[in-house]
């Protein structure tokens, strides 16, 4: 069975589905027996959620107005 360090290195690739079947099987076998690495997996999911939640940051109205004006001026050229 793989050790915790190796398991931890594979967690994000596992969540990304960028891991081959043999490595995935080894990791899942490890996760089935290791509470610590299950915690790490959960935390990796939380960090990913934090990053993806930041995608929807809206543009400040003043900055949007400036950029829209810039686009309009470009279009008028």
């Amino acid at each position, binding site marked *: 069975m793989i050790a915790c360090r190796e398991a931890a290195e594979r967690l994000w690739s596992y969540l990304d589905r960028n891991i081959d079947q043999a490595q995935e099987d080894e990791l899942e076998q490890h996760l089935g027996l290791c509470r610590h690495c299950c915690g790490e997996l959960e935390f990796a999911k939380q960090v990913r959620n934090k990053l993806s939640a930041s*995608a929807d*940051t809206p*543009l400040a109205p003043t900055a949007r107005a*400036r950029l829209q004006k810039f686009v*309009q001026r*470009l279009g008028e050229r």
Partner: protein
Amino acid sequence: MYVHAAAETAEPFATLVEPHLDYLYAFARKLCGERTVAEDLVQDTLVRAFRAGDSLRNRERPRYWLTKILLSASADRRRKEAPHEHDVPLEDERFSLFDTLAEEDPLPYSDRLHLDFLDLFDDDSLTASLQQIHVAHRTALVLAYVYGYKAREIAELTGTTTGTVLARLYRGRKQLEKALWEYAKQRGLLKGEPRR
């Protein structure tokens, strides 16, 4: 190639790009940190997109097309500003934020320690933490985990191989863990640290 077969149908430039202004600005901000620099980078991107002409516009995936232009504009700026930028080695590849939080227990009275730690970060502090990561790793990280691009798309967008992208993502994740921890410590967000 970004030549679309039906590119002859003229569409006003503003109609094509305005739905993506929020995205372009948010992406630029995560890449370069400062609001004014981000806005400048978006303007540069818009000028390049406009000059590319109708035949070069990808009407099926305008966001992807604009992303590629923004990355190119950003790379050109960096070459001018920091032509000798090198990869920054990680001091300790074994650093684990999960373990560090469990060992240091830096938040008082928390029964959901790891989640509470992440809740300390709003968009500004997350953006500031991302700036501590090497730009190649930061770019891959933002494209993959903020905007959901696949590794092969990131490779295409950044002109490298999928293998290199996967390596950058790995290092970027480790650097992000370290950057979040250091930011929280330096800003006094943790117990026992003076708040700044």
